[in-house]
């Protein structure tokens, strides 16, 4: 099959648009900015990773960009909030999904309840990142401008650092799972986030409720 044909095919009716162009831009912007923040953050987190700072332009550069880039990440999280809030609401289905989390982890997806646009795992991931980013924001501002704090308020600084690190570690945990799920466990997700489209079958299999919603009245397939 030619590449030409591939593209034709991809734009054909057996594919559904999973992520719009804007959504994909925002997602990858988030991904990149998060990665930068994570790497530069990790450089400062432990001496054993300080060499990461060199990769990112050296310590002062990493220190300079980290807070600015984090603002980009914050923006993406907020954009997603505005765009996807409806799809991210935790519902009863999610509770049932969570009850069957073992089945999901062990790839017995057939016993899982049908899911909307995002499954409960994805929603939880978002909300973890959402709250983490708020904590990172507040503590990060403190850490960004330590000189604002007169000595009487210096006690705030280590508190901020602890919160910042804790939130960052939690978000890193979440991101490990996110990347693992998206890239390895469910490669279609990665493709979807790159190309924006998924097959109807895939959609029906993993996000049946979403599939039904988007196909209702537009398709008689299957």
């Amino acid at each position, binding site marked *: *099959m030619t590449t030409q044909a*591939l593209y034709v*095919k991809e734009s054909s*009716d*057996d594919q559904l648009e999973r992520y719009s162009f804007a959504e994909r831009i925002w997602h990858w912007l988030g991904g990149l900015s998060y990665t930068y923040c994570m790497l530069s953050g990790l*450089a*400062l*987190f*432990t*001496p*054993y990773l*300080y060499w990461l*700072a060199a990769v990112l332009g050296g*310590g*002062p550069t*990493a*220190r*300079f960009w980290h807070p600015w880039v984090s603002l980009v990440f914050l923006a993406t999280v907020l954009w997603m909030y505005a765009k996807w809030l409806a799809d991210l609401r935790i519902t009863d289905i999610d509770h049932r999904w969570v009850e069957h989390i073992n089945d999901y*982890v*062990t*790839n017995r*997806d*057939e016993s899982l309840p049908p899911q909307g646009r995002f499954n409960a795992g994805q929603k939880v991931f978002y909300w973890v990142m959402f709250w983490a980013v708020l904590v990172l924001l507040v503590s990060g501002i403190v*850490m960004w401008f*330590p*000189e604002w*704090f*007169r*000595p009487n308020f*210096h*006690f705030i*600084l*280590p*508190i901020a*650092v*602890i919160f910042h*690190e*804790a939130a960052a*570690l939690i978000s*890193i*945990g979440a991101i*490990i*799972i996110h990347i*693992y799920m998206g890239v*390895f*466990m*469910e*490669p*279609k997700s990665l*493709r979807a986030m790159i190309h924006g489209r998924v*097959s*109807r*079958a*895939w959609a*029906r*299999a*993993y996000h049946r409720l979403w599939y039904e919603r988007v196909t209702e009245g537009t398709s008689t*397939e*299957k």
Partner: protein
Amino acid sequence: MSQATLGIRRISGHAGPAPGEDVERAEQVCKLIDTTTCIGCKACEVACLEWNGYTFTDTVFDNSYQTMPETAWNYWNLIKFNEHEREDGSITLLMRKDQCMHCADPGCLAACPADGAIVQYTNGIVDFQQANCIGCGYCVTGCPFDIPKFNPATKKMFKCTLCVDRVSEGLEPACIKSCPTGCLHFGSKDDMKGLAETRATQLRENFGFAKAGVYDPAGVGGTGVIYVLHDVTNPEAYGGLPKDPRIPLLVRLWKGPVKWLGGWSMFFGVLGVAIHYLRYGPKIPQDGHDNRDDSAPGHRDEGVKP
């Protein structure tokens, strides 16, 4: 360039041991400040500023002889003036030179994430290497004496160097040299401790200061700057000298357990998902459409058919 070099005992943000740790024996240098003979003349402030050549700042009179509220990035030592009422109602003026204490266990260095931004030389001087400083201000967090200060123009932290450029050439720090009354004294830590204890004894026995003593706080492993106080039980009266300074618990927590916990958690997180992949592999849709080959790079979803 200076030919002077000093061995290094500790380096901030450094993986593994400091290159000079435990390989060199050196006399610990120490600054003794006898507050009972301080006359608040500020010669030390000027000598410091002159020697280090820093810029001037506009100050504002604030109902005190004190030059400014606290030390600044370009003002490393500051006499703190305190009108103190004694128990008998008489007034006294307590004056204390505030500056980096050059802790044996420096909180700034512990908190600093930048490799080599803060070093402790084998002679005990704690020094900031601005070339390596990333301006994160973590050192402020670690310092129980509120010493490191941020220069917004260069985004670097600054503090007293104990004139390491002079000390390494065999001179005494500029403030020490200038001090008119000899309230400042410089020498080895052992000698300064001895002098300080002798002076404290003299104050107790001959000058009626029953509570006179030496301030060399154990909480930070002892300091490279020690004080003789008229009343060692009340260091706070001397412009907020902490009674029992320690590196904040949170900083210890963060630089210790949290690092290990975080590091290992990340490691095990990655390890965990890898094992999971090996055990369960990627997901395959249950409705008969085989997507497995999609997981391989280079494959396209030609298998996906409506």
